[in-house]
């Protein structure tokens, strides 16, 4: 057991940046989420349509856009129940420039108000974590969805 207590490895700190961002969205704690984001955030949700054979960008926001969007969520009529992002960080490409490219696999489950859960979306996150500051920050996320039928959709980004 070669790492002393009380220390977080850099790799784990990178992973936790990704995981915390998902936990914040799960909890709909948007200010916690925004607090984890770098000022130059680029957030996209994409999917490929085999019907029209084209890649689609279903959501694209920078930090200000994300802030505005999340601020308005409570005024919208949104999907009932809760979403839970179940993520596994796969690859960490920790570049010499202090930016780590992180690839993760995710499954999102939806639990309805009656407490019944089902698989909602499966996909892959391709993220960048900015490791240059005191705190590691989410700088870029592409959520690429396998699932394209989202039922009534979602006001909250995946």
């Amino acid at each position, binding site marked *: 057991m070669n790492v002393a207590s009380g220390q977080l490895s850099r790799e784990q700190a990178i992973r936790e940046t990704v995981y915390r961002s998902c936990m914040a969205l799960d909890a709909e704690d948007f200010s916690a989420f925004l607090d984890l984001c770098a000022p130059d955030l680029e957030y996209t949700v994409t999917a490929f349509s085999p019907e029209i054979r084209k890649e689609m960008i279903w959501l694209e926001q920078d930090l200000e856009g994300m802030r505005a969007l999340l601020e308005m969520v409570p005024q919208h009529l949104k999907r009932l129940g809760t979403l839970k992002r179940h993520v596994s960080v796969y690859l960490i490409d920790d570049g010499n420039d202090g930016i780590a490219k992180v690839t993760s696999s995710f499954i999102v489950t939806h639990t309805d108000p009656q407490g019944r859960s089902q698989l909602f979306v499966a996909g892959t996150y391709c993220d960048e974590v900015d490791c240059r500051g005191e705190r590691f920050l989410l700088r870029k996320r592409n959520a690429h969805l396998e699932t394209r039928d989202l039922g009534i959709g979602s006001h909250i*980004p995946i």
Partner: protein
Amino acid sequence: MSARNAEAWRTLPNVPPTHVVSGEVYTDHGIFVAEKERIFGRCWHLACHESELPNTYDFRTFDYVGTPLIAVRGRDGIIRTFINVCSHRGAKIIHEPAGNAERLTCFYHLWSYDDRGACVDMPRPEAYHGVGLTKEDCGLREVRTEAFLGLVFINMDDDAPDLTGYLDGALDSFAPVLGSGELEVFHYNQSILHANWKAWQETNLDLYHEWMHVLLRRTQMKAASMESRVVKALKNGHTAAGGLKASYEMYKGMAKRDTDMALPGLVPDDFFFADIWPNVAILARGTAIRIDVVIPIDEQTMLVEWRGLGRKGDTAEQRRLRMRHHNQYWGPFGRNVPEDAFASEACEAGFRGGAAAYQILAREENGAGQDDGMMRAWYAEWSRRTGRSAAQPTAAVAAE
């Protein structure tokens, strides 16, 4: 009077029968069967946009009310549609949503069909000669296909009037943009919604429901006067609305749309739409067009397809911006369409078990404002087609 008891709740309100629709239209199985036959078996249905089949031998497959279909662009450039089912032992032939194939070859015993639906090959055909069967007997079932303004329609009824007569000018307001030849589909998604299929059309026909959308309350309700709106009931149940405007910058996080993003014939803050009976809605905002097509699965389940159309010649940057314009209102993560889907399922929840007895379509605003006229026109055609009064649909059925 405040709350009502069971009897008062079930009694139709004292309004004209054209202004009320029974909950049974959502739930009655006999009505659903009649809709499949009399409506979906006879009306023109928007299958796809011609840009989805740009090249010779491109195909698109889709399911139409339980029937697998395939549209193919032939070597003559014409798009034809066939039932996507093999003449031999009934297998669905092609399983990918889209692709390119000079011949449609059934995976099962390798019978092969050309772009006209003729069976052109089968392994060891001589075994059929004893009973006199040859590949000439084994063509696919062709389904009538006609295109208008780039929209490809099909009709299961070999005897239906032609598409132009059916549309009868309902898409006139879209002619400049759809007819420009400059459009292509850049967005496609589909969802199963847990509601009767008509609930989706209602969201598109019901102007009054802009109250639901905070986005419309901010960008639309004051962008133009209620009086300047024009709601029209057209022939054959089609409808159209115009005179609407959008002030996109009124919603935080959105921006005014620039003129250079406008589609041919449109200005950026325009908003108008048409509804092609029974199951298509086409909505034009200045920089993107949305097309909805809804298909019933059963009484309480539907499939909705959403397409987004933009300019073929977009730069990458323009396309990205156009996707954003489209999706901020209309995508699966948009601010509007998920609310409409929520509403459809909420109405289904009211009607499914019979809790709601009827809905009221009684708004009269002289064809402006938030008049319910489009919904009434839609149900008038529904009554004509099904031979049933929408207010009392299980009472008596007219012969065709």
